[in-house]
């Protein structure tokens, strides 16, 4: 959905992605308008599968020009692809595909907690978050809480981003809404359905953009606009704590 919103707002020239849509209903109408009609502007689409996006970021995270894979052989995604080319196994095995690195200018990732140096603890749904943080030239960490560095050091295996990779750290509770943050926020599904309905027309999208982006100067006003009932309902109140791990030397 976030892809769709950026595209529909006319801020995107090129998309490198495996899937652009809305978890509520499939189609992303902003993406479709841009791709099919060039509205509000033409976009260049570089299609991938999930794994080739993952490998492209992983290659950059490893400081490599490409990574080889067997995925995608026989399909149209890899045919004439600007970033995926056939490659021979130097050890004599079957042919593979090389997926070229994608090195983002900036990655913005939301975590549960970080210290002032940007050492970040993240748990739950990881996807490609860590690869993105490692691959990017600059990484901005937004977090539910800035915590004392002792909290981070108490559980170093949960640190997925070392602070020297973090360009900036921002305390922004609810920064991932309407998506969920394990232990902090439930998914707010209503906005996904609402956006799916309203973005069907360009006028509808622009109304959404005015109401939910342009009229709201910061995240705090976004939360206020959601309303107290919504934020209360979505905030995780109960605890399900992991067992403590003993790091005594």
């Amino acid at each position, binding site marked *: 959905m976030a892809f769709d919103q950026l595209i529909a707002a006319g801020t995107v020239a090129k998309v490198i992605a495996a899937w652009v849509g809305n978890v509520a209903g499939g189609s992303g109408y902003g993406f479709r308008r841009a791709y099919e009609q060039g509205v509000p502007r033409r976009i260049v689409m570089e299609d991938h*599968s999930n794994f080739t996006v993952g490998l492209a970021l992983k290659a950059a995270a490893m400081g490599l020009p490409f990574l080889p894979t067997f995925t995608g052989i026989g399909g149209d*995604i890899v045919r004439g692809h600007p970033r995926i080319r056939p490659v021979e196994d130097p050890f004599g095995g079957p042919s593979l595909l090389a997926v070229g690195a994608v090195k983002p200018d900036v990655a913005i990732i939301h975590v549960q907690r970080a210290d002032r140096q940007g050492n970040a603890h993240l748990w739950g749904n990881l996807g490609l978050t860590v690869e993105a943080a490692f691959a990017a030239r600059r990484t901005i960490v937004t977090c539910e809480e800035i915590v004392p560095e002792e909290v981070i050091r108490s559980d170093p295996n949960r640190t997925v981003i070392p602070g020297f990779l973090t360009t900036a750290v921002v305390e922004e509770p609810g920064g991932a809404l309407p998506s969920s943050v394990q232990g902090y926020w439930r998914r707010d599904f209503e906005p996904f359905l609402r956006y799916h309905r309203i973005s069907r027309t360009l006028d509808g999208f622009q109304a959404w953009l005015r109401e939910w982006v342009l009229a709201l100067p910061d995240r705090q006003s976004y939360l206020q606009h959601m309303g107290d009932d919504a934020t209360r309902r979505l905030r995780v109140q109960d605890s399900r704590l992991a067992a403590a791990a003993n790091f005594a030397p």
Partner: protein
Amino acid sequence: MIATYTRRELMVVAAAREIRDGEIVFVGMRLPLLGFGLAKATHAPNAVGLFENGVIRDRPAEDFIYTMGDPPNIAGAVACLGLNDVMSLLQQGRVDVGFIGGAEIDPLGNLNTTRTSAGGSLVRLPGSGGGGDIASLAGRTVLIMEHEPRRFRERVDYVTSPGHFAGRHRGGPATLITTLGVFDLSGGRVRAVTLHPGVTPEQVRQATGFPLAIDEGTPPTMPPSADELAYIRKADPDGFWTGDTMKGG
């Protein structure tokens, strides 16, 4: 007593029956998600599910989820790794069966979820997601489709998830579950295994844009048992994924 169930509930049951006990399953969203939980609760208690966001579960989520990243799919998981980790397991050959949905299919089991001009004008679809990877790398795949003539095409416009082709790395499409029946795809052609109760061979032929084999005396799909229905309705209490009432008998 004649049980009442929806077509989608029947499809969930058919999906569950494709999972054998002890198998490693690459679970997709929507119906396969419920199918995996149902298989675990009935005949396949030792199956393990991999989700493309990195989650590994050996028991279904405790609450309703919209997507695999939702908090109830994280709580109680065996592991929360990254996308590249579970995709690596898939590439290794560790996954027995994977589920994929598509917008269009052809007789070789090629799926298109990228773009189509079937209706006259260009329509952009969301893209591969993990579908192309599952199609390439799972031991076998189970495809799930709406059975409509415009979706069943002699040749798809774009092969997002490759079906059968010479030199295939692994397995390929084994079974197709549609709104009308269950079909065998393993031989590189489409052959009816069962037709859903009340569905005639003629109806299937008319809904399929290419010739397919329906033997004389193809049996009906076994309707959901009371236990199976009870499970599905507990997992999807509001019929979000499985609504759309069909009276079965």
